[in-house]
């Protein structure tokens, strides 16, 4: 009889892990709470640093999961997880019971809820948006303000919900800097007359081709970078966003009027992940993401036998890293099943 593995979450990590396992001849049940697979890929238009359409990556991932070896259960919640001798027993919201030899948790991340940074006035001021809102505008092909007009000055705030003790997130989400740079370039492409300002604490451009993108943003697109954390935003009589920031490099506070403020929301442990943690008795680490058994060689392993992790449910990662991590998860599961 074929081995059976349950993968929870059908985002980038879940799809890749499921695809890899299926190719190894293992039956997979892929459970997704949303109706659609692809996770956050569905909300993003173009991906950094090469600016390809997110659909291409989604198509690639789905190409390998669209087969008989993988049973997709979409729009389904998990109610119970029991880890026993015979394997892992998962009860779904439909009352169905699935028994598997191993479980991969690929519950991904949630974007930081930007309204929690009350001082930026997201969902209060008309022209404050998040990176995800902007992606929707890119997909539509039109960047517009609350009143339908095109913005001329756009400010991008880095580290919203990341590296911020005040919201309880001490970690760096890693992707917001490069997302900011990518979006700044896209804004300039859409609106050649616009001026874009990135307000950053540090430019963390550590990935492949990130620094080059940063340089391009400065050189080719004239994006302005101001080092300082925006402390507050207000709205003036013309619905413009007035921000206050310290230009730390000039050593002076700075006030600026913007048509649009875009918040680079960070990554947080997903709500779904927290639920699974409770059901399966998995531990959370310092940043509330799942705790792995070892940062160096155990980044796919949980403290519970037979349960493995894939992707951003363990830490912020970009798509490349997520896919690598998911492949590693599949490898871990295969070797676990072989030695069982």
């Amino acid at each position, binding site marked *: 009889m074929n081995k059976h593995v349950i993968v929870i979450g059908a985002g980038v990590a879940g799809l890749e892990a499921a695809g890899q396992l299926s190719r190894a001849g293992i039956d997979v049940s892929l459970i997704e709470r949303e109706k659609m697979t692809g996770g956050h890929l569905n909300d993003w238009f173009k991906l950094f640093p090469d600016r390809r359409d997110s659909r291409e990556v989604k198509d690639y991932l789905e190409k390998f999961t669209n087969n008989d070896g993988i049973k997709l259960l979409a729009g389904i919640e998990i109610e119970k997880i029991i880890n026993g001798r015979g394997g892992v027993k998962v009860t779904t919201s439909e009352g169905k019971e699935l028994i598997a030899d191993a479980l991969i948790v690929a519950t991904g991340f949630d974007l930081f809820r930007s309204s929690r940074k009350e001082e930026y006035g997201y969902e*209060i*001021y008309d022209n404050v948006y998040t990176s995800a809102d902007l992606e929707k505008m890119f997909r539509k092909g039109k960047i517009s303000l609350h009143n339908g007009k095109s913005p001329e000055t756009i400010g991008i705030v880095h580290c919203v919900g990341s590296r911020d003790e005040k919201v309880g997130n001490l970690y760096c989400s890693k992707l917001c800097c490069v997302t900011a740079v990518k979006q700044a370039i896209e804004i300039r492409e859409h609106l050649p007359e616009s001026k874009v300002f990135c307000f950053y604490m540090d430019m963390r451009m550590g990935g492949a081709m990130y620094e080059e993108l940063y340089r391009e943003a400065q050189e080719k697109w004239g994006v302005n970078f101001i080092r300082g954390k925006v402390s507050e935003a207000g709205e003036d009589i013309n619905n413009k966003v007035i921000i206050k920031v310290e230009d730390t490099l000039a050593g002076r506070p700075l006030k600026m009027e913007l048509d649009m403020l875009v918040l680079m929301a960070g990554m947080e442990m997903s709500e779904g992940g927290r639920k699974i943690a409770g059901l399966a008795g998995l531990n959370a680490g310092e940043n509330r993401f799942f705790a792995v058994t070892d940062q160096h060689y155990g980044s796919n392993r949980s403290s519970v036998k037979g349960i493995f992790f894939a992707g951003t449910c363990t830490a912020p990662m970009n798509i490349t890293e997520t896919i690598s991590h998911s492949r590693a998860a599949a490898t871990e599961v295969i070797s676990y099943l072989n030695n069982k």
Partner: protein
Amino acid sequence: MKLEGKKAIWSEYQKEIEDDHYFYVRSCIRQNFFPGSEVAFLRIMRDVLKKDVYEHPCHTTCSGIGYHGDVVPVDTAMTVVARQFALMTEAGYSNYVPSCITSFGLYTEILDTWHHFPEVEERVRKQLRQATGREFKVPGNLAHASDIIYKFRKEIAEKAKYKLVNKETGEPLRVVDHIGCHYSKMFPSKGIGGAEYPYVLAGMIEEWGGETIDYPERRHCCGFGFRQYLVQANRGYSVACSKEKFDSMKPFKPDMIITNCPGCPMFLDRWQYVINEMEGTTYGQNGEGIPVFTYEEVAGLVLGFDPWDLGLQMHQTDVEPLLKKIGIDYDPSDKYRLDVRSEAVSNEILVNA
């Protein structure tokens, strides 16, 4: 502006306020700056709302003004506060209501400190015992006087004679609500509506028919800043702060400013005069200033108290334009009359502290 967003935040920041039996503590400076306000509070509470408010004749300053002016060490401040609590305990009350925002901030800070560091509370108890022989209980409920008025804003609205509405046009008055810095900036969870979008005054304005203005420098300090004002060499910063706020609110054409802090109405009111003298700038309409009120004064006006009983003649920026806008019936000739109509001072014996 999206009101739903604010409502979501307001719903997150609510606090428990007891509905009777308050131990009221006055502010040091308000009695000089706006002496009518605290009297008005007592009148509203006792006569209009029929609540039990107790005032102890022996209470002192909380020493917050010295603490924030860097002249009173924290241990001294805590001991003074402990004595106030002792007076409350002795009087048999547990709902502590300070009139001053800085006091409220200091009490909150001290209670929070004691909560996290019980050994500090023990030390203060010992110090108070050594100094005065008194014992105290920590207040069961701490609410600022504006919290109380907020709590009863609907009752006041029901009994109101006037609304914050322009009588001529029928439009709601455009009101700037200015919250004292020490109200919730230090402990957002202890203020109604939190620190970024406090609701305590906005709630009153809304209930009494006005419309609040959200202008960019809403969060900015009024300019008091303690040392900024107290040291003359720094006083220019104090005016500059107020000016920044006025410049920012001016395009919204506010009809009035409401505050809940002792210093703020003082500086927002007086500095308008100073700025006008220095630069010739005015911020209201028709070359007038923007009248500045305490929330008690506004509550009093709404309830139909005589403006001069509320002490509005003590304001530097004239309040008459606003009285006319609302359509309040008043006698201009009464403005500077000399007989004092306020209640007789209670005859309780001053106990040796």
